[in-house]
């Protein structure tokens, strides 16, 4: 998938992974208070597994890095944490409600990291564009 504008493409793969990362963080935070009756399926936090993308065998520059990709989305624990809240309509006979395992602190630090990474990739795109423009400008 390498093109003559590889610098821009590579930064694009980075921004795409960062976007997926930010989306999963959004989902985790939005669902962190989804209480259910204990024993019912509870929301499982989503985490992005990123992996390097390399040129496949047989291509010109085999093994050269061409960016990053989402290898998989891992899920958090399927069993939530119990909280005693007898007035909650979904509480069980013991008065417990099951909440998803989402750590807001972790989600927020991840969000900052994802945002910084997104900015860095955007910066690379504009640098690469300038560089290609300078090359296109070579003339007698």
């Amino acid at each position, binding site marked *: 998938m390498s093109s003559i504008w590889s610098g821009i493409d590579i930064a694009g793969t980075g921004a795409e992974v960062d976007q997926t*990362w930010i989306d999963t963080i959004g989902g985790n935070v939005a669902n962190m208070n989804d209480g259910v009756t204990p024993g019912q399926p509870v929301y499982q936090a989503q985490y992005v597994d*990123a992996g390097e993308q390399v040129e496949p065998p047989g291509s010109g520059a085999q093994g050269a*890095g061409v960016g990053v990709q989402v290898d998989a989305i891992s899920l958090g624990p399927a069993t939530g944490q119990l909280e005693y809240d007898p007035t909650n309509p979904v509480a069980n006979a013991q008065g417990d409600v099951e909440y998803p395992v989402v750590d807001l602190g972790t989600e927020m630090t991840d969000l900052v990291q*994802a945002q910084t990474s997104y900015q*860095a990739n955007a910066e690379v795109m504009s*640098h690469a564009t300038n*560089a290609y423009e300078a090359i296109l400008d070579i*003339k*007698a």
Partner: protein
Amino acid sequence: MADATESIGILQFALDAVVDQQQTIANNISNQDTPNFQADEVTFESSLAQALEGGGTATVEDSPEGLASGTDGNNVSLPTEMTLMQENDLENQTVDNALSGQFSILSDAITA
């Protein structure tokens, strides 16, 4: 003293190397959060200087950057990459300007 076509050949090598370098930096930055990713670096400057002084062929070297890794096994340093990117930008501009210069010399010679 190199003539114009020789200089263009040298500058062409440098431009290829600079573009290679830029792609490697882009790859390092896009993988700054990839677990166990190790940053690479492309160098050609000393090899080119050596070839220009003592003859021989200059090569583009692709090697691990070798910085210390964090807890996730990743060793990309964003400040390092940003600095390298700025340097790479300037190198690119320098080579492009030099190429334009060589081409105008050729063009002047042709139209003289």
